[in-house]
């Protein structure tokens, strides 16, 4: 198996509370992998530790075999990791277009930025319609599109998405998930998807990990996880 990201024995503590207790998992190149679990299981913490927003208390993270443990977020962006954070965090005080330019902050080649921008606009035409608007005036779904588009502007090879369905109209959730699959297939970008909507997440992913109180308790192909009685009872509503 050709591994893109490997996490080994990762632990995170907030003061005396252990948020992640030595978790290990790996993500194959080109795949969509999902991390499911209930509130407070440590999903967001895992993504934040990988993108450098959260200091880890132990363990190692490797990107294509090279250790990236302890690097700062902006250094990780340079290495091709993009993180669409929980709550989207679009720059409400910037226009849609400025948000996208910020996504391409480390890109120097204007022609390449233009090409990526065209791709983002083709993926989410709504963003082009609203390019001069302040991001704070967008609807929740549009902000999610912007957050994903902004992450794509850095031309990542690895994209992490934290709860892209949260607080979004159900009809838009379907669209956004279809786009995520499209981005993965067409651009060859590896995706790590964190979701509370386990049903949806297991549908689009090929492999899944189940996180419970800071530990990985199950790991299997997504199709098999959907049949797993334990998963069905806890996360898929029986």
């Amino acid at each position: 198996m050709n591994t893109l990201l490997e996490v080994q024995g990762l632990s995170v503590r907030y003061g005396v509370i252990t948020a992640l207790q030595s978790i290990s998992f790996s993500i194959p190149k080109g795949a969509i992998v999902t991390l499911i679990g209930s509130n407070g299981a440590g999903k967001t913490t895992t993504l934040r530790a990988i993108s450098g927003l959260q200091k880890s208390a132990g363990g190692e993270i490797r990107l294509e075999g090279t250790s990236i443990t302890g690097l700062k977020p902006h250094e990780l962006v340079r290495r091709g990791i993009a993180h669409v954070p929980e709550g989207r965090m679009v720059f409400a005080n910037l226009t849609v277009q400025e948000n996208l330019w910020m996504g391409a902050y480390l890109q120097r080649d204007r022609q390449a930025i233009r090409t990526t921008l065209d791709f983002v606009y083709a993926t989410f035409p709504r963003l082009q319609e609203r390019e001069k608007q302040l991001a704070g005036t967008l609807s929740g779904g549009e902000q999610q599109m912007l957050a994903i588009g902004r992450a794509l502007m850095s031309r990542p090879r690895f994209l992490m998405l934290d709860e892209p369905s949260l607080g979004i109209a159900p009809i838009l959730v379907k669209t956004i998930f279809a786009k995520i699959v499209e981005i993965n297939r067409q651009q060859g970008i590896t995706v790590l998807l964190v979701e509370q909507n386990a049903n949806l997440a297991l549908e689009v992913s090929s492999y899944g990990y189940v996180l419970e109180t800071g530990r990985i308790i199950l790991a299997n192909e997504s199709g098999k996880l959907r049949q797993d009685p334990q998963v069905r009872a806890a996360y898929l509503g029986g």
Partner: protein
Amino acid sequence: MSEFLQQFLNGLALGAIYALIALGYTMVYGVLRFINFAHSDIFMVGAFAAYYFSNWFGRFLPPSSVLGATIITLASMAACALLGVVIEKLAYRPLRDRSKLNVLITAIGVSLFLEYAGQLWFGADPKTFRLLPSQNVHVGDLVLNSNQLIVFGMTLILLLALRFIVMHTRIGTAMRAVSFNHQAAALMGINIDSIISFTFALGSALAAAGGILYAMNYPAIDPLMGVLPGLKAFVAAVLGGIGNIPGAALGGVLLGLVESFVRGSRFSTYADAIAFAILILILLFRPAGILGKRVVEKV
């Protein structure tokens, strides 16, 4: 009427200087959410830098010539920009993740350090210096000092330059992104530390320009000269809406005008008191400042 216009012009000149200082307070607040109390002393160092540069290099660069004055001003702005960056790096950055109160107290410490180191190195006695010769220009009944014209011109240029940087450049957009949310900005590949350094450099350079313009109009400079204008500029920044760049410029000009009109009235003894009372009144009705938005804290 001419009395009114005269006070208006005087107030505008004073307000322009407050505006230049207020911008530094508001920009640093924008990216770090704390008040850099040492900022008023950067203003003082700016005036002294120009004083020493004119003494040292006056022979090659006559301070009374336009070229000499320009180069001396730019050099002083650069020196203060560097000072601002060094202060942030040594005093504030190590406390970045601590409670805001720690940084605030440290800023007061840095302020006192600059004031008393200034007394030690520059001497406590006031010094005088002139950049360009001052001439009075009569327009009808109005008396305009050439230095006031320079204040207007230079402030306008600096404000336009700042607006261009903040609104239309990559680093300026990054500044706005950082002021919105550090973590989201970091995820874009923005190096937060260098944007913060840049913000300090920009604010300090503007304060230096303010110090020099102030010294051109009130030519005696001393190490404590920044205290009162600094306090007023801070109030101006709050008045305009702290963190809001056009607000700081507006607040500065407004404060200068109010002060000048009160000074021209028969209540001139109470100029500062009345000016501040008016500000308190404005803030009672607009607590977030004139252009500030009320931020709803999300739980």
